[in-house]
């Protein structure tokens, strides 16, 4: 044996760290002489020499991690006779030894499938006319797709309506939703708030803003930015509320800053300004960045419950449906009360179920009050 490789130390461990060498280059070893101590995930193991011989080289120093099958010790004098030729034949990389060599004689079976047949000029035509060539049935020789086929397909396609690339906020929305769908692990809680104590004059949006500020105080774990790559969360000191605003051009989410420390009147004015800026398309991008939590008050349009989508790095979004009169059990009787349906989504990577439910409870407690005083 020329090279002694780190043997399998059992229990499926694939690597070990060198703790201490007990031999050095040039030492003459007896069989079973202690060579090296290595530490696996489980224990320190002493590795003996499998044969007598002279040490020609040691691979690695104390602290190095060696994988099973990698060389540990080189013995002298056992070089294979590699010939008398000029030039160096490189020896195989040890990890490659006994390399798998699976091959198919001749053609792969999956090659029976044939791809589309079309000349390069016809393919270029299809590209220019924005036609998916895969969907065209060829009418030419050997079912090849002709220029006429492509033009016909393009005409048919036009009759169905034009496709248009997404732009601006619509494009941003698509990207944010894709990111959310691929990263976030959402949980949505639904519940109803009985708001029969409210007088008619309540500003629903401001009640929701107030409730969110209150809930963030009670349960700060949802006013958080979460970094899924580093697996870290940042508890934020201020609550900056993103408010979804629907427009013909798409979905805008301007940010109402620091909702815990401003009066509701001041916040209402701020929100009106933001909405105005969105409507007139004059909102600067920075006014739509840095939200710590989101509110989607879709109830003004339609809808009861939803599964609102969390947009990273935020971990929470509240959806509010429309207030409606419902028959509910109240103090042992069937009564008709106004009911506000809520849908709270949180990212379960960052937030526990308990935190989510406590947050929702705080929201509901605040919303159930007669007013915000």
């Amino acid at each position, binding site marked *: 044996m020329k090279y002694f490789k780190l043997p399998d130390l059992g229990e499926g461990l694939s690597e070990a760290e060198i703790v201490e060498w007990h031999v050095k280059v040039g030492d003459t070893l007896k069989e079973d002489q202690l060579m090296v101590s290595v530490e696996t995930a489980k224990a320190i193991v002493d590795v003996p020499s499998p044969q007598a011989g002279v040490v020609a080289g040691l691979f690695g120093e104390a602290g190095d991690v060696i994988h099973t099958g990698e060389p540990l010790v080189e013995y002298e004098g056992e070089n294979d006779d590699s010939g008398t030729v000029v030039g160096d034949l490189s020896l195989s*990389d040890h990890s490659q030894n006994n390399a798998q060599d699976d091959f198919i004689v001749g053609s792969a079976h999956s090659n029976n499938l044939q791809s589309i047949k079309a000349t390069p000029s016809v393919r270029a035509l299809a590209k220019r006319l924005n036609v998916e060539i895969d969907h065209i049935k060829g009418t030419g020789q050997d079912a090849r797709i002709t220029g006429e086929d492509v033009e016909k397909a393009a005409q048919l396609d036009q009759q169905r309506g034009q496709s248009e690339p997404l732009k601006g906020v619509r494009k941003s929305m698509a990207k944010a939703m894709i990111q959310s769908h691929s990263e976030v692990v959402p949980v949505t809680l639904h519940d109803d708030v009985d708001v029969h104590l409210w007088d008619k004059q309540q500003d629903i949006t401001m009640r929701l803003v107030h409730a969110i500020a209150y809930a963030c105080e009670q349960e700060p774990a949802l006013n958080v930015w979460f970094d899924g790559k580093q697996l870290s969360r940042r508890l934020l000191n201020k609550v900056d509320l993103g408010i979804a605003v629907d427009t013909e051009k798409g979905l805008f989410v301007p940010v109402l800053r620091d909702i815990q420390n401003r009066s509701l009147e001041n916040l209402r004015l701020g929100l009106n300004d933001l909405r105005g800026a969105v409507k007139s398309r004059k909102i600067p991008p920075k006014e739509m960045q840095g939200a710590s939590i989101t509110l989607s008050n879709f109830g003004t349009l339609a809808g009861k419950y939803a599964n609102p989508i969390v947009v990273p790095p935020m971990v929470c979004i509240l959806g509010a449906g429309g207030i409606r009169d419902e028959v509910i059990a109240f103090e042992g009787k069937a009564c008709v009360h106004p009911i506000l349906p809520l849908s709270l989504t949180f990212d379960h990577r960052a937030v526990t179920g308990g935190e989510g439910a406590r947050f929702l409870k705080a929201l509901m407690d605040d919303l159930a009050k007669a007013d915000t005083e």
Partner: protein
Amino acid sequence: MANQLNSKTDAEVVESVLLEAVNLALHYEMAHDESVVVLGEDVGTNGGVFRATAGLKDEFGFKRVMDTPLAEALISGLAVGMATQGLKPVAEIQFMGFIFPAFEHLFCHAARMRNRTRGRMTCPMVLRAPFGGGIHAPEHHSESTEALIAHTPGIRVVIPSSPIRAYGLLLAAIRDPDPVVFLEPKRIYRGAKQNIINNGEALPLDTCFTLREGKDITLISWGASIMETLQAADALAEKGISAEVIDVATIKPLDMHTMLTSVARTGRCIIIHEAVRSFGVGAEIAAQISEKCFLNLLAPVQRVAGFDTHMPYFKNENFYLPNTQDILAAAKKCFSE
């Protein structure tokens, strides 16, 4: 070589590098066919400069394992004579760069014997030669001139790219009734080891081997460049591109069926070879693909090859040899719209 028995066939299983696989096949065939003889420079007493023929003379004697003078014309001339008179010579040209004096007998006689005699005589000889660069050897030791031989009708050109294929294809080459030039990629002579079942089972000649199945692009190569090609396939896989890898193995005659059916499906193709680019085997394959897969092609066929110059001295060898990055750059061209 660590030997053990294969439980199913009772055949010996031998862990071998490509070089040892050549040696193993020679041992097997000499033991099972008395008409097989080996000749060449240093093949007997020395066992071959790379040790490809080591042990043969001890086992089969000097009458079957012959050291020749340093004269390649003599080696191939002797082989033609032996082959037409009932022996199966396996002659070694020490390096492919020394093969030129042997061409006279190879091209003018071995290649024509069947045609000249209207099929009454054949020439069952094998000319083995290590070929290709990458071992820091001096001039004349690193050429890849397989296209010269492939251009001449009547000669098979076979190039293995793994120990298992070296074993199976060399046996097939020796048993073939016509002349075969068997080129051994010496850069991977001592590459990865494989377990070879030493049962004398040959692999078919005149067929490609599909090493990886893929659907987006077909990578075609042979010899030592298969290593870079497989690495490129791995790198492409990381980018979500599924590459089919085909080892041509028999350079002449080409198994175009396998290559054409693959490219007809993937629509993209890169041919990778170490030999100079112009007038090479890659050009022939590219031409046939362009003719027969024209309607399926999504991009022009690319070639990644050596430069049109002599193999440089060894310090510049790595600049000459096609590497994985070159293949990936060609792949990028195939996928750019």
